[in-house]
């Protein structure tokens, strides 16, 4: 898988089509995001499957937003899995990244990762490496939904009570880009104090992810308290689909997310 990607990136860099390729590199024994600008660095390029598939994924689109803003006329390649492609489509649609500045280089995820992610589309439309795995439905959501309402509520309150308010779920999220975050608005919550207001802090974030969350699972992985945030946001995405007939990132790249949420129109 790595070799096919390296060849593709080498070709893109040599042709001058891209100024750099944002991918992952293993250096000093660790894997992290890296902007390859010179074919000689490509030796260390990896796709983020270190000890097990997808264990060293990063929110590359978040870094890409900074890079394309820092160089508004440059075109960059970026490593994408299915979820990253969904992210790109949504970010193009909301004007956060210009599609003409990006050349995605796609990889499909192996079946065990698709299973662990409960991924509806574990591959990007266009891919350079990997075989498309079978999609999986949201078993974790179904499990919670099988519980009684008050039992469910108790479960979430107990989960949220573990929060150390690190803001990691927001910071890592490739779809969180607002310049003013509601979670830091003092009219809304007590920002400098612990514990996080339960469940206001978490439900605020959950509601703000409606129409944005592309189900990459990075928030769940970053949470030091192991709160199953992804399950919550999967449910939010289900509700958005039921109500608005769209799921962020699953449409064609040309169509914006299709959501144009204005408070007054949301009368249900």
């Amino acid at each position, binding site marked *: 898988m790595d070799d096919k990607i390296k060849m593709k990136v080498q070709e893109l860099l040599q042709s001058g089509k891209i100024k750099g390729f944002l991918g992952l590199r293993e250096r000093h024994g660790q894997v992290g995001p890296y902007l390859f600008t010179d074919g000689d660095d490509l030796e260390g390029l990896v796709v983020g499957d270190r000890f097990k598939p997808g264990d060293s994924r990063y929110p590359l689109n978040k870094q890409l937003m900074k890079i394309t803003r820092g160089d508004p006329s440059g075109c960059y390649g970026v490593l994408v899995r299915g979820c990253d492609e969904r992210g790109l489509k949504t970010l193009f649609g909301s004007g956060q990244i210009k599609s003409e500045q990006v050349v995605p280089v796609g990889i499909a995820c192996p079946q065990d990762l698709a299973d662990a992610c409960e991924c509806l589309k574990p591959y990007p439309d266009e891919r350079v490496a990997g075989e498309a795995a079978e999609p999986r439905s949201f078993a974790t959501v179904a499990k919670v939904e099988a519980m009684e309402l008050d039992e469910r509520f108790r479960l979430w309150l107990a989960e949220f009570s573990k929060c150390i308010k690190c803001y990691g779920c927001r*910071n890592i999220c490739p779809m969180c880009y607002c310049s003013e975050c509601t979670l830091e608005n003092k009219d809304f919550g007590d920002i400098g104090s612990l514990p996080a207001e339960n469940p206001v802090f978490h439900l605020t974030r959950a509601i703000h992810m409606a129409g944005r969350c592309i189900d990459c699972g990075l928030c769940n992985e970053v949470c030091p308290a192991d709160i199953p945030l992804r399950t919550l946001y999967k449910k939010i995405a289900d509700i958005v689909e039921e109500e608005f007939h769209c799921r962020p990132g699953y449409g064609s790249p040309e169509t914006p997310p299709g959501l144009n949420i204005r408070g007054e129109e949301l009368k249900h």
Partner: protein
Amino acid sequence: MEYRTVLTTCTYCGCGCGLYLEVMDGRLVGTIPCKTNPVNEGKLCVKGWNVHEFVQSPKRLTRPLLRKNRELTPVSWDEALDFTAARLREIKEAHGSDSIAFLASAKVTNEENYLIQKFARAAVGTNNVDHCARL
């Protein structure tokens, strides 16, 4: 435009979480927790997440300050050290070694922490050594 990620260790506490600093045209623009680091496995606390901010903060102290006529005034290192040494000696002579305490820091190296406890015990003669986490 130049964009780099630099692998480093969080300086806030003794855990030593691994993180990448994002550097754009020579300025720090973000922190990314390192997922493969066995210490933090891709997680950080709220302080670690904001490491990139304090490095370039205009509020950061860059010179020694001495309170003169109630005002914190920038002075040279020599003046600051001479003043501190003279006052520590006066206090020790007037009230004894145990009237002085030393607070070590998670933000400095192991060797620097060793030096401060050595200074406390050997030079000043007190076991009053504590840690910044209990300040």
